[in-house]
């Protein structure tokens, strides 16, 4: 299972706790994880990435294993520790004041 940590506002929206677990079929990439999030929690469509272009929203970041993956290609494999469920994949609201 892939572990995903969502920011507080999205947890409220999806009515979930700090961490969710997802069954992600096939290669585990940022795109496949985000697809799985949106399939399981359709109310999050458009909140992490644009619903049409699928581009990451500009004030959302992706972290895992102490790395910033925000600018990695969406179809690049995620770190092995994320794939094995040892480390979570973090969806983070960028620090921008407020």
């Amino acid at each position, binding site marked *: 299972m892939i572990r995903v940590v969502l920011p507080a506002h999205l947890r409220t929206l999806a009515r979930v706790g700090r961490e969710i677990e997802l069954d992600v079929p096939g290669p585990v990439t940022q795109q496949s994880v985000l697809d799985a999030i949106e399939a399981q929690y359709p109310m999050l469509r458009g909140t992490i990435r644009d619903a*049409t272009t699928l581009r990451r929203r500009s004030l959302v970041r992706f972290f895992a294993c102490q790395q910033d993956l925000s600018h990695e290609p969406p179809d690049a494999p995620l770190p092995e520790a994320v794939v094995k469920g040892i480390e979570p994949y973090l969806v983070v609201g960028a620090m921008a004041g407020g």
Partner: protein
Amino acid sequence: MSGVRVLVGTRKGAFILTSDEKRQKWDVCGPHFAGWEIYHLKGSALNPDRIYASQSSGWFGQMMQRSDDAGKTWEPVGNDFGYNGDPGTHMWYDGTQHPWEFKRVWHLEPSLSDADTVYAGVEDAALFRSTDGGQSWTELSGLREVKGHLWQPGAGGMCLHTIILDPNNPNRIVIAISAAGAFRTDDGGTTWLPINKGLHSPYELPDPDADVGHCVHNISMHPSRPNVLFMQKHWDVLRSDNAGDMWHEVSGNLPTDFGFPIAVHAHEPETIYVVPIKSDSEHYPPDGKLRVYRSRSGGNEWEALTNGLPQSDCYVNVLRDSMAVDKLDSCGIYFGTTGGQVYGSPDSGDTWTPIVRDLPPVVSVEVQTLS
């Protein structure tokens, strides 16, 4: 027992204020959607328990929420606001062309004839309609064909903020955009006309009398006289007696004719309300005195309403969707401020009381009259 429900949208959540017909004791419920910007909430006239809310965030974008139990519980509905086809470009602040980009929903207007139909005015300016209770949205894109390339953002963005449905003619809708002006459809939203004759904007437009480009801040109408429209423009208060075909200024003796909201009394179609603001660069009341101005003659002659409002050291703003009226026998007037106060008057504006004082900055106020 009759009463009122005041729907308040703020920069950090929504609040619902309820009272009986005396409007002296208030129950405050909220924040709903804590931490999110709630640009607007509005209830259906056909089913008052159905309320729509626009929930947005600079981080996570636009969400739409619907309640079918008067705001006790909410369900997310559709948030896909895709423009029809290639949306093209509009004018940017510097006069160059800029791509059309959806940012947020500013205003929601439930249909007067079908509880599942609701209109949404968005930034970058466009009008959308849902016929399934907000689950899906379709753009009425004929609007942007009216010289959309000449529309430009005001200081708050290029927002479609006013939607007026004609109670006698379901095919007639009037909308307003900052800064494009006012527009009307007479065929249910397929084709649109600019209705800006008589508007004069010498400090904002190279052609002060252009047919599009004016910064209209708000328009209001009394349902018994849908051809009479009242407008608060960037500068100037105006009225039209022919559904917007021609406007004339009624600023009269106002201390300043800059402002944002304009409202019409529920039972007196010639009684209107504005909140004068010092200027476009100083968004607070003149002289630090928060004064609502009332005209009982449809404009030109105005009186200051001050009883209960701060008359010194007050430097809040009142935004365009932040004033509303109830329909009780003694008409109630309500407005919210960027300082987080919501003031109410149960007697047409003669006396005012703060219902709440310390909310986040108020973006919108709507009222439901409950029977």
